[in-house]
């Protein structure tokens, strides 16, 4: 399979042929005829100089392709082609199919809590999936490996940054990547793949850096987690994915997010928060985070989270092992916020995301049930509506 390419395209239905982009392009990669203005994939270096001056928004279109659309082809377009299913057209070997079945099974298991109805928010960006497979993985370089929990804390959680170099790996917040530790098991077969949710926003750790981060907890006897937590700078890792098509955020700025997590379940919410900070920094009061850990020392990202203004992200921490303090769990914090949550839950602009240990699910649901009951509402009905609209998402393990 040839390396897939993220191709920059201009939507001919929206473009008004003002040629502003052509003037902005420093290397002459944009050209036109009487009908269309198009980007030459052989020349474009993705510098993005052309994006901001475009008066129409037609410039900001991308397709992942195995063979680039030629200039001639584009000049004749009346409309943009749909994103082709790269998986279906490029990988049909038996091995890949088994591997896909593995990924599907793992994701289905993780997202069981939302049931079979789980679907993406209507305004979510359409995700690209399965670009890189185990037979042809993406080689990513370790850019950094930082311990997130304090040295004395009872868990070792790592923030791993992987540099994607020049590769196109268009992931979205909430999607996962697959990592298989090197070597074989006792039967001489490769190890099983593990999925990790990306914890950086789509544009990278810093805007427009082509990298991604993972949040990984070292598990006793965990083959893959120990492999990842021991990675050193400049080590190379085989990545597959991106995976996942429903646990995504809406692009609609009017929507509100309730995020509930424990431990490394915070990974997607770090990405959600950063993405919204980049795209909708001016919008306050539209995100709530309920985050449970044993102690502040073992809560990943405790420091950076505290720097996010409360007006932008309404934070509720629950600690279950702080000396001389009663044990508090996320469901307790949910109940404590019930008057505000009751209003949010019945608002059709509200999206719920639950991520972390499977054990938390029932407690969280019970809290939602009580909050709704207190407001004379039926939680089951509310939840069914949310599921139908792609507004209720669960990823637990």
């Amino acid at each position, binding site marked *: 399979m040839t390396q897939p390419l993220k191709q920059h395209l201009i939507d001919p239905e929206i473009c*008004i042929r003002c040629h*502003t982009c052509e003037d902005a392009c420093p290397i002459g990669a944009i050209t036109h005829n009487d009908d269309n203005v198009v980007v030459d994939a052989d020349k474009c270096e993705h510098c993005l100089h052309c*994006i*901001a*001056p475009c008066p129409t928004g037609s410039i900001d279109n991308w397709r992942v392709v195995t063979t680039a659309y030629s200039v001639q082809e584009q000049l004749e377009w009346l409309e943009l082609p749909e994103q082709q299913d790269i998986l279906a057209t490029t990988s049909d070997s038996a091995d890949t199919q088994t591997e896909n079945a593995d990924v599907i099974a793992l994701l289905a298991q993780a997202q069981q809590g939302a049931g079979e109805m789980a679907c993406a928010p209507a*305004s979510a960006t359409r995700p690209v999936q399965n670009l890189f497979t185990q037979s042809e993985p993406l080689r990513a370089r370790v850019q950094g490996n930082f311990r997130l929990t304090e040295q004395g804390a009872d868990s070792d959680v790592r923030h791993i940054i992987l540099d994607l170099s020049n590769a196109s790996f268009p992931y979205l917040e909430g999607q996962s990547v697959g990592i298989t530790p090197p070597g074989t098991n006792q039967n001489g077969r490769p190890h099983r793949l593990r999925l990790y949710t990306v914890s950086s926003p789509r544009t990278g750790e810093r805007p427009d850096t082509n990298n991604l981060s993972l949040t990984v907890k070292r598990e006793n006897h965990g083959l893959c987690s120990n492999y990842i937590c021991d990675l050193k700078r400049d080590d190379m890792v085989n990545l597959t994915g991106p995976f996942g098509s429903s646990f995504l955020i809406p*692009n609609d*700025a*009017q929507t509100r997010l309730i995020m509930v997590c424990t431990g490394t379940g915070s990974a997607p919410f770090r990405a959600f928060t950063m993405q919204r900070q980049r795209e909708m920094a*001016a919008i306050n009061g539209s995100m709530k985070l309920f985050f449970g850990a044993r102690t502040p020392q073992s809560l990943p990202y405790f420091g950076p989270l505290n720097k996010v203004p409360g007006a932008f992200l309404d934070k509720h921490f629950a600690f279950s092992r702080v000396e001389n303090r009663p044990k508090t769990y996320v469901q307790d914090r949910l109940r404590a916020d019930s008057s505000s949550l009751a209003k949010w839950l019945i608002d059709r602009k509200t999206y719920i995301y639950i991520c972390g240990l499977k054990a938390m699910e029932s407690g969280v649901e019970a809290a939602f049930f009580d909050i709704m009951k207190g407001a004379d509402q039926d939680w089951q009905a509310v939840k069914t509506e949310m599921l139908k609209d792609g507004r209720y998402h669960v990823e637990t393990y």
Partner: protein
Amino acid sequence: MADLMNVSYDTLIPNNVGLSSDRKVLKALEKWHPGYLDWWQGQGPDGFQESLVYLRTAVSVDPKGWAKFDYVKMPQYRWGVLLAPQVEGRTIPCGEHLGEPAWQEVPGEYRSMLRRLVVIQGDTEPASVEQQRFLGATAPSLYDLRNLFQVNVEEARHLWAMVYILQKYFGKDGREESAELLQRQSGSTEKPRMLGAFNEATPDWLSFFMFTYFTDRDGKMQLEALAQSGFDPLSRTCRFMLTEEAHHMFVGETGVGRTIQRTCEAMNEAGISDPYDIDKIRALGVIDLPTIQKKLNLHYTLSLDLFGAEVSTNAANAFNSGIKGRYQEVKIDDDHRLKDATYPVSEYVDGEILLRDVPALTAINMRLRDDYTKDAAGGVKRWNALFRKYNIEFELILPHEGFHRQIGVFAGAPIAPDGTIISDQAWQKQSEQWLPTKADGDFIQSLMKPEWESGRYAGWIAPPRVGIDNKPGDFEYVQLHMA
């Protein structure tokens, strides 16, 4: 030294021309500023000065980060003076000074010609704001309302751009001209704006879209020609204005396109396939396609008049002196002096239309107008693609250059849209089929009901395919503040 990429906010007037160290000009502009704000309050958008509008403000002339989007009350918009970066070693691209270094100061011999060009360009900018000031009350959506206001604040910034040139380079004359720009008024009987099309009313939103498509496109072509000027500050200011002007073209092209789309959808839903079944189509609450053609005829022909006489010695002088170039002058492959070149120009002699080759130097206006027509045809082609998409047999056509003209060789000639010469009597009789009548206007007016709810659109227009600044469909582009 001033940072020439990023905009400095150390004076009341945002700028990238180092105003804070140019006391004389700063003082002159600050003196002009209150009068400008009075003009905006009195002649700018009526009734929305307190609303928060999601506008883009230019914060840099560097393409990568030039605009910033945020909510702002229009009177607090940061109008400023922004010039595209100076191109090192730029030379005069045309005329008898071809190849000489571009002027950084006004060349004395061309002073009055240059001043007149700047004043005419400057006069159109506030004029369009005045023409559009009552449209807000009938906006078909908050999205459209926002686009109207974006066009308005940017036209007003273009006034600033021209006033800066006047104040900086034309001394006392420049100050007087700057004041006059705020005194003339679109449609006024005593002190009208300088060009005809800018004294016409913009009574409804279809007119607004047609105006931004056809008339602002004349503005674009004029700016393109002035961007080729050998007077470098004028070239630089026009180059940056073009970046903003593109948005206005966008509003026009998509506005007309969305109107057509809604009409086609409504016809399909009602099972009407004949676009000339006007009464039935109007009963659906959408604008019938023949009426859209009439509006096109009107706005296109008014805009053709803006290019002036086909053969013009003024235009020849401006080109020859290097003050104003042709569209994309530097990309044209010729001598850039037009010593012996000819250009075909239409003539109307004894009831006949003839094509005659005239010295290209005198046909500068004609050439720019031809480039304009070609540019305008692009959008018409897109609109026509919509009819095919909805399976409706109809085609919008740009009328013949001789149809309905007030200026140039065809002024007053009885020529049909297809170019046929007819009798004056026949023209009078048939003009109702070609140009919007009062009844057509009344019908369109009857559809002009405001839609203030986020994400909703009046019944005669389709929603846009993408939001401004990638915003979702129900984004609140204007937070209304009703006095």
